[in-house]
């Protein structure tokens, strides 16, 4: 394809040269929205061919146009969207079809799984009704019995236990992972040829993500459908996809096979993205690759390369004309499909080092790094902390019908200069633990010691204030945690005013803080909405640091951020810890981030720590079956490894803490337990394993390293 073709010529060419056997061919897809700020050009020329049975991964950050692309293919964008180009399903043009004509294809030829399973099912209809509806629309002649039988089959296929009864259940009676399975069942009900999955696992826990990805895999095998997998997580697609399309600012910037993209990226953005992701499988502690800046505003025309503003390799030539997506020339063993939209693609050969190109900072060294752990002072200590919620029933007179043991006997400590992370699925008690530490009240069950002050002594305001000065918190959602009506100056001044600091000193301290977290000091009079997500989280960090605490509690500090921005914030946290000698207590669900930033880790399950120790010991040699399962659930951004590794797929969801089992909490889902002979199982069911030290770490299991149940092991050959 020459560089000087007009869109009309490219469309014609596409019609002529598109592979005849492609199920879906997209050519020069452009989507524009009218907004208050002018026309937003959300998708700017997307081309791809999807072959039968193959999987295409579309990767990009939020706002890159990947979801809009999928919605345009489905014909689900609002009528006001201006869509041009061509979308062909088996050679038939879909763009421009009426809603009614498009309905013949939607759900039967092309089906879709959406991101948020909690809101994607109609709350007032049963799950069965919603599956059967999808069958009825496309098979009006099917009998009721046949449809019901098919719905039961579908639910069984996606792994929902006792499917026949569950047909009559309503969506709110299912967990998030179960609902996403139902969504998949609906999508594959009519054996579609193309299945589009838009961030299907983003809202789910890692263990549930692994289950759902497994279900998608099965669904693809059963139906032979081609899959378009849209995600921001490079790990998720590494094992699934055959081809990858990296999108940036509404445009594909690099396409190719998974191997091309992961092992030989030719576009600096792809390179940066790969370097920005921490790896759960490596103890390598170098800094992550930060991609500074933000994507361009698509309401304005893009001049030159859209990535130029953030690219470390940028030169004058990059600013003249947007680079075309061109075949990457002449590397031996190169597939023809590898294309990159970068005039410097040649300079980036297979051994390009993202750390060098993006000038990743060196790994910071803390003054505590040389001191043995036990010689450092304790910053925080928890002794047998418990939080039990009574479960009440009755309208006027409450009866106690049970106890939810949200946190059940937690003991650990944090020393100076170290980062301790608590990991586990949602509902395991991570957040309650943080709340208990923040609560700091003498009536709590168990003892919390912060900087030498015990909660048992916190009877007056002065002690509590002293503790607050020792410990501060950074929250998950930087947008929600900052008052929109406060300027940054006011946000940062508030904690200092509380301490009674004089005005001049406050001003000086705020300027210091802004520099410390990498923000421009002259931005202090702006409001939070004038900052990007990453910058807001930096403000949140600055606020926490204002009073010079020794310990910072981080509650999912980067989970709301895009990958490239996340890397910058993680690097900042690393740097601050080293420079200021801080200690962190972090709660995170992303184990890769945990591995990257933490020194020690505690794995929680149903209110108890099941394994704890140095992060490298626990991650490299997990002993407790739950830790093993959790780690195996994390997808790694390495296609070869991802395709061959054995993974443990836990059955079911986290049980409700109400019906916690009598013996080992984990026995109901344990892959080791399932493989044990009945005689040994007895022990797990009756006795509670104590958290005991063995080898490098502590864990609570009678049969560590035990053989795993074959049913829960999966390898994709």
């Amino acid at each position, binding site marked *: 394809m020459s560089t000087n073709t007009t869109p009309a010529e490219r469309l014609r060419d596409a019609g002529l040269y598109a592979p005849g056997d492609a199920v879906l061919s997209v050519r020069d897809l452009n989507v524009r929205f009218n907004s208050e700020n002018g026309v937003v050009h959300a998708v700017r020329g997307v081309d791809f061919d999807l072959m039968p049975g193959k999987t295409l991964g579309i990767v990009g950050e939020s706002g890159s146009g990947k979801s809009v692309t999928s919605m345009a293919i489905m014909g689900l964008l609002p009528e006001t969207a201006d869509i041009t180009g061509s979308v062909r399903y088996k050679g038939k043009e879909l763009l421009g079809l009426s809603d009614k004509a498009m*309905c013949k294809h939607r*759900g039967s030829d092309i089906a*879709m799984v*959406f991101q948020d399973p909690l809101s994607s099912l109609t*709350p*007032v209809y049963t799950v069965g009704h919603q599956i059967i509806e999808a069958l009825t629309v496309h098979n009006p002649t099917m009998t009721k019995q046949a449809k019901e039988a098919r719905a039961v089959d579908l639910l069984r296929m996606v792994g929902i236990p006792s499917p026949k009864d569950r047909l009559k259940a*309503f969506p709110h009676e299912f967990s998030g992972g179960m609902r996403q399975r139902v969504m998949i069942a609906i999508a594959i009900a009519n054996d579609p040829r193309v299945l589009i999955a838009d961030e299907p696992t983003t809202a789910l826990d890692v263990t549930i993500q692994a289950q759902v990805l497994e279900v998608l895999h099965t669904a693809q095998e059963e139906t032979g459908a081609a899959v378009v997998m849209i995600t921001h997580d490079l790990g998720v697609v590494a094992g699934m996809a055959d081809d990858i399309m990296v999108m940036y600012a509404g445009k594909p910037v690099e396409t190719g096979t998974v191997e091309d993209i992961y092992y030989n990226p030719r576009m600096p953005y792809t390179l940066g993205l790969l370097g920005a992701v921490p790896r759960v499988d490596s103890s390598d502690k170098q800094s992550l690759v930060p991609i500074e800046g933000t994507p361009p505003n698509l309401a304005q025309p893009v001049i030159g390369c859209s990535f130029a503003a953030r690219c470390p390799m940028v030169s004058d030539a990059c600013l003249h004309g947007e680079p075309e997506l061109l075949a990457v020339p002449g590397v031996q063993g190169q597939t023809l499909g590898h294309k990159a939209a970068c005039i410097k693609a040649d300079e980036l050969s297979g051994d390009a080092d993202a750390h060098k190109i993006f000038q990743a900072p060196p790994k910071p060294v803390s003054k505590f790094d040389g001191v043995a752990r036990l010689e450092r002072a304790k910053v925080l200590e928890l002794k047998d902390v418990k939080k039990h919620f009574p479960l009440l029933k009755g309208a006027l007179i409450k009866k106690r019908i049970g106890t939810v043991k949200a946190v059940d006997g937690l003991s650990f400590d944090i020393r100076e200069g170290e980062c301790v992370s608590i990991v586990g699925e949602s509902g395991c008690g991570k957040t309650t633990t943080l709340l208990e530490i923040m609560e700091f009240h003498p009536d709590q069950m168990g003892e919390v010691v912060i900087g030498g002050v015990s909660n048992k002594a916190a009877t007056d305001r002065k002690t509590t204030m002293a503790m607050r000065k020792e410990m501060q918190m950074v929250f998950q959602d930087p947008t929600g945690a900052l008052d929109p009506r406060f300027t940054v100056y006011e946000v940062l001044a508030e904690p200092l005013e509380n301490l009674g600091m004089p005005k001049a000193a406050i001003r000086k301290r705020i300027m210091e803080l802004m520099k410390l977290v990498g923000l421009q000091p002259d931005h202090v009079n702006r409001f939070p909405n004038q900052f990007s997500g990453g910058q807001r989280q930096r403000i949140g960090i600055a606020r926490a640091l204002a009073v010079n605490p020794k310990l910072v509690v981080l509650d999912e500090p980067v989970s709301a951020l895009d990958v490239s921005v996340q890397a910058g914030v993680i690097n900042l946290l690393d740097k601050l810890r080293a420079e200021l000698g801080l200690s962190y207590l972090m709660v995170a669900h992303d184990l890769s981030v945990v591995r990257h930033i933490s020194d020690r880790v505690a794995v929680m399950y149903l209110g108890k720590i099941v394994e704890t120790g140095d992060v490298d010991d626990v991650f490299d040699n997990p002993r407790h079956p739950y830790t093993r399962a959790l780690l195996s659930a994390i997808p790694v951004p390495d296609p070869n490894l991802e395709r061959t590794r054995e993974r443990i797929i836990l059955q079911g969801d986290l049980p409700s803490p109400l019906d916690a089992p009598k013996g080992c909490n984990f026995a109901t889902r344990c892959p080791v337990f399932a493989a044990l002979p009945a005689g040994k199982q007895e022990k797990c069911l009756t006795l509670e394993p104590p958290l005991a030290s063995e080898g490098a770490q502590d864990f609570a299991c009678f049969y560590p390293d035990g053989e795993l149940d074959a049913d829960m092991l999966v390898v994709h050959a």
Partner: protein
Amino acid sequence: MLKYLMKRSGIYLIMIFLTTSAGYFLAVSSLKPAVLEQEKIPRPTPEQVAASFRGLGLDPDKNAWERYVEWLGGIVTKWDWGRSPNGAYVNAEFADRVLVSTRLFIASIILTLIIGVALGVYSAARQYKFQDRVITSYSYLVHILPAPIAYFLVQLGAISINETVGQRIFFVTGISTPGIDPGWPAFVDLVAHYAVPTFAMTIFGWAGYQIAQRQYLLDNVNADFVRTARAKGLTRNQAITRHALRVSFIPVAQSIAFTIPAIFTGGFFAEAIFAWPGIGLWSIQSIGLQDVNVATATLAYGSVIFAIGAILADFATTLVDPRVRVQ
């Protein structure tokens, strides 16, 4: 479900008892029928007034508590809600009044509901188009138009129709013509009396439902589950009517149940203007006439209707929202 309704009914019974008792104390301490007796000619002596009231169970010399016990005793033992200062029995008039009110409002309640919800759906489906703007503007206009003026306008319209035709087709006031033959003539007479108030209350009544239904539906039109339904192969309109509508009807169903009692008990404008002497008018008049027992009885009726409305609201919600059923 039945158990739940029984429980709710029990709670409402206690609440009705409390509001009615409180209302009785308020009425008995603020309404003084003796003052009105003074305007009679010949003016009765205070002793005569007291004696006549004593005979009606309205003894002004007893304190509030004694009268409350007496009044409550009458209701509990004989279902006797007492008498008016003019000697009339509350029980005797009550049923007639309730019947008049019910007949006046029932048709327009059903019509406003159906038309309002239908127009809400219609206008939501055509958001910002011409039809939507007309319908919704009309609803807002009606909202700011005081009810008496609106009813008068309809009456004037009906009168001008009568004049144009030169024959009395519509009656703008009254319930029925006295002395009409039973059968067909009576039915025609009924319709002629019924048409104007029902029409007036309907066209000025649906605005609230229309606006609410439109708003709730629009909130749901772009919901994720509607998108899922469309992705299955339903057209946009099918997805909206089958999925968004039912969800958006949940809050409307609740509001319906709560507006019904308001119309029944607060419809005194309609009752006064169209001269249908129903319960709303009676309750206002009773306060003017310093009539303790009637004021309390209408208050009790209002509480009962409200409780029925609340139970209906619960019932309607459970009907459309399965999430409430599981308990």
